[in-house]
C-alpha cells in the first residue's frame, strides 16, 4: 500500500465522538459535480438501470387469451412467474434460487477481478443516490452553493429551494414505488385503479414502503447506508486481494504534496478536488478504506486537475495493489520529477486475471449455469405426484384383501388438455382403480389434465386375499399417452400387514 505523508486518517473532527460517547453527529457530505470518463460511464449505467426498472413492467408479451400479456410479471395471486416466454410455477422456485446463486457468484467474481464495481456503479443505493444528488445540484447549485445555502436562515430562498428539492425527490420515490408494484400486478390494468383508490391494500402498502425507503435512503441516509448498514462492504474484503482493481492514489508519484509552482514536490498539489467530489466524503489519498465504494469519481476530478496543470493523468487510477507496490518500489529512490514518473509507470504490472480465486468462481459459475441449463432443458411439462394415504396405512377388506389409497396430482404446465391411461407397475395380484375416472378400451383408468393446472384423483390399489406380499412392496404409477409411450412414472410403495 502506498506510503502517505500523514499516517493519521484525515477524519473530519465532527466524526469523532465526544469523550465518553459512542455516537457522533453525521458530517454532511456535499459532493461536487465532476465530468470525465468514469462519470460518463456512471451516467450511462444509471440511465440503463433506471430505464429498465421503470419501463420493463410496461412491456407486453402475447401469451394468448385469458393470460396476462405483461412481459415480466410476478403473479402472486395465481402463483405464476412470467418472464417473456418463460412461465414458472411456485414449486419451480429453484430456478429463481439458481438465478440468485448465479448473481451472488457473479458478484464475487466481478469483485475479485474489478473491485467494488457493484458498489460504485450498479448498486440501487448508488444509482438512486446519484440521481437524487443530481436533482439537488440542479435546484440548489453545486457544492459551494449548497454549503452556503445550508448556512442561510430557514426562510425565503432556503425554503423555496429545499421544498422544491424534496418535492422532486418524493416524485422520483413515488415513481420507484409505483414501478415496484407494477412487477406484481398488471401494470396497465392497475394504474387507473391505483389512481382512483381501487387498488388493493397490499399495493398501497408496498407503494408506500418503496416510496419511503427510496426517499429516505437516497435523499437522507446516502453514504451512511454503505458505511453503517450494508453488510456487503463488510465481507467483500474476502473477495478482494492484491490483484483486484481498486481505486488507488499513486502516492509514489504524488508525494510529497505541495504547490505546483514550487520545486521538490510530487504531482499532488493538494487541491482536495478528489475529496470534494467523493460521495462518501473520504480522502482517497489515505489509502484503501471501508467507506470507499470504488466509484472512481476522484479519478475524473484528479485527471481534470492534472490536465489543466499539463501533467500526465492517472495520479488516481483503477489499479491493483500489486502493480502499485511495484511502481512504488521502483520510484522510491528517485526524487520527484518526470524521471520518477516514467520509472514508476514503467514498473507497473499487468493485472493477473487468472488466479485460483477467479478460477474457482468461474468454475462454480459454469457449474451452476450447467445445472440450471440442464434442469431447464429437461423440464417436464407434465408432472404426477403420488401421495400415499397414511391414515389408515392400509384397509383390511371383508374378504381379507388389503387396500391402499393414493392421492394423485396430475399437473400440466401447457395450455392443452391431454389424456393418459394410468398403469400400475408392481407385483401380480394388485388391482388398480381410480375413483370417478373413465376407462379406455382396455379397461385402464383414463386421467385427463387441466390446462395450466392440476387435477387430483384418488387411486385405490387392492391386493387380492391370499396374495403373499411382503410388508412393503415398491410400486409405480405410470401414465401412458395415446401412442403407448410412457409420459411419466412416479414411484411409491404398497403397504400391508406383516406376513
Amino acid at each position, binding site marked *: 500500500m502506498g506510503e502517505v505523508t500523514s499516517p493519521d*486518517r484525515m477524519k473530519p473532527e465532527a466524526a469523532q465522538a465526544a469523550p465518553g460517547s459512542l455516537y457522533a453527529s453525521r458530517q454532511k457530505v456535499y459532493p461536487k459535480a465532476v465530468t470525465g470518463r468514469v462519470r460518463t460511464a456512471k451516467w450511462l449505467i444509471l440511465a440503463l438501470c433506471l430505464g429498465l426498472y421503470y419501463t420493463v413492467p410496461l412491456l407486453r408479451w402475447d401469451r394468448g387469451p385469458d393470460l396476462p400479456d405483461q412481459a415480466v410479471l410476478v403473479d402472486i395471486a395465481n402463483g405464476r412467474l412470467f418472464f417473456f416466454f418463460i412461465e414458472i410455477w411456485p414449486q419451480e422456485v429453484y430456478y429463481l434460487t439458481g438465478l440468485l446463486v448465479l448473481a451472488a457468484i457473479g458478484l464475487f467474481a466481478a469483485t475479485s477481478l474489478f473491485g467494488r464495481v457493484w458498489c460504485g456503479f450498479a448498486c440501487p443505493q448508488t444509482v438512486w443516490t446519484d440521481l437524487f444528488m443530481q436533482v439537488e445540484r440542479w435546484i440548489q447549485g453545486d457544492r459551494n452553493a449548497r454549503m452556503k445555502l445550508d448556512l442561510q436562515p430557514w426562510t425565503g430562498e432556503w425554503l423555496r429551494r429545499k421544498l422544491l428539492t424534496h418535492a422532486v425527490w418524493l416524485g422520483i420515490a413515488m415513481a420507484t414505488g409505483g414501478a415496484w408494484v407494477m412487477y406484481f400486478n398488471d401494470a396497465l390494468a392497475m394504474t387507473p385503479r391505483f389512481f382512483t383508490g381501487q387498488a388493493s391494500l397490499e399495493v398501497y402498502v408496498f407503494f408506500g414502503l418503496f416510496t419511503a425507503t427510496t426517499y429516505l435512503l437516497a435523499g437522507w441516509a446516502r453514504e451512511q447506508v454503505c458505511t*453503517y448498514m450494508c453488510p456487503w462492504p463488510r465481507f467483500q474484503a474476502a473477495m478482494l486481494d492484491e490483484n483486484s482493481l481498486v481505486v488507488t492514489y499513486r502516492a509514489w508519484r504524488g508525494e510529497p504534496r505541495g504547490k505546483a509552482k514550487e520545486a521538490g514536490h510530487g504531482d499532488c498539489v493538494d487541491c482536495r478536488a478528489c475529496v470534494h467530489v467523493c460521495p462518501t466524503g473520504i480522502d482517497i489519498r489515505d489509502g484503501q478504506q471501508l467507506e470507499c465504494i470504488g466509484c472512481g469519481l476522484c479519478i475524473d476530478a484528479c485527471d481534470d486537475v492534472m490536465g489543466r496543470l499539463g501533467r500526465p493523468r492517472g495520479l488516481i487510477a483503477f489499479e491493483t495493489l500489486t502493480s502499485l507496490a511495484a511502481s512504488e518500489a521502483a520510484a522510491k529512490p528517485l526524487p520527484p520529477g518526470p524521471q520518477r514518473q516514467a520509472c514508476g509507470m514503467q514498473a507497473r504490472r499487468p493485472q493477473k486475471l487468472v488466479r485460483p480465486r477467479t478460477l474457482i468462481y468461474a468454475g462454480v459459475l459454469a457449474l451452476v449455469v450447467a445445472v440450471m441449463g440442464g434442469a431447464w432443458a429437461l423440464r417436464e411439462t407434465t408432472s404426477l405426484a403420488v401421495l400415499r394415504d397414511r391414515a389408515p396405512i392400509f*384397509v*383390511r377388506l371383508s374378504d381379507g384383501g388389503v387396500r391402499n389409497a393414493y392421492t394423485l396430482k396430475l399437473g400440466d404446465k401447457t395450455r392443452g388438455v391431454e389424456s393418459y391411461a394410468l398403469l400400475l407397475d408392481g407385483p401380480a395380484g394388485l388391482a388398480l382403480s381410480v375413483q370417478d375416472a373413465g376407462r379406455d378400451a382396455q379397461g385402464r383408468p383414463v386421467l385427463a389434465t387441466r390446462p395450466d393446472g392440476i387435477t387430483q384423483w384418488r387411486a385405490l390399489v387392492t391386493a387380492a386375499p391370499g396374495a403373499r406380499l411382503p410388508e412393503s412392496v415398491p410400486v409405480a404409477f405410470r401414465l401412458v399417452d395415446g401412442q403407448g409411450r410412457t409420459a411419466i412414472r412416479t414411484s411409491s410403495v404398497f403397504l400391508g400387514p406383516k406376513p
Partner: protein
Amino acid sequence: MPTKIEKDSITGTNTTGHEWDGLKELNTPLPKWWLYVFYATIAFSIVWMAIYPSLPVTGARGLSGWTARGAIGPALEAEKAAREPMLAKLRAATPAQIAADPEMRAFALAGGRIAFANNCAGCHGAGGQGAPGGFPSLADDDWLYGGSFDAIQHTIRHGVRNGESDEARGVAMPRFQADGLLKAEQVADTAEYVLSLTGRATDAAAAQRGGQVFAENCVSCHGEKGEGNRDMGAPRLNDQVWLYGGDKASLMRSIGWSRAGVMPSWGGRLDPATVNMLTVYVHALGGGE
C-alpha cells in the same frame, strides 16, 4: 465504566476505553440519529403495547378493544356469504346428485374433509380408519348399516343407539351370559362356531355344539351363515373385519355381555349441507356402495 480513553496511533481514532486482555476497542461512532431511531422504536413499542392487548394496566383488550376474534369476524362473514350459493345447492341436492356433479362434488369433498376432521375423526380416525373397541372403519367395504349414499346419510343424520332420534340405527343385542340366557360353556361353544365361519375353529366338536346354539339364538339377526343384517346393524360374522376383535376371548365377551356402539345424531347439530358433504366424503373414502 471505561476509564482510559486514548488516541490510537495508527488510525488516529479514540478508543472506547474498554480493554480485554490487552485488546482495545476503537470508538468508531454511529450517527446520533441512529440512537434516536432506537429510542423512537422503544417509545413506539410502548404505545403499541398499550393499544393492543399486552399491558396488564390496559386490560385484556388493550386501549383499542382489539381482539383476534373480532378482527377475523368480517372475513369469516364474507367467506360465509361467498359460500352460501354453493351451500344452498348442496342442501337442495341428494348426496348421489352431488357426487355426480363435478363442481358440487369437489366442493363437498373439500368441505366434507374439514367437517369430518372437526366432528368425526375423534372416533373414526383422521382418515376414517376407525379405532379398536367399536369405532368402525369407514374406508373398508364392510358396513353395519349400508354404504350407499342414502344409508350413510341416514346414519350420519340420526346416529346409532343414542336415544336422541327415533330413527337412530341399531338394535340392542341380548347379553346372553350376563342375563343367564346361555351358560358359559354354551357361549364358548358358540364362539368356536363363529370362528369356524371364517375357518379358524380349533375344536370341531365344540364348534358343532355351538352351531346348535347359534341356530337357536343368533340366526334371526346374524343370518344362517353369519351374513349379518343391515336393518338391525347385526354385523357380518363370516368376513375378516371385526369391530370388537375376532379372537375367541373377544367373541365370548361379545356373546356373553353384548356390545352396543353409540353414535350421536348429527342431523340436529350440523346443517343439512354439511351432512350431505360428509356423506359424499365418507362415501369416497373407499367403501362407498
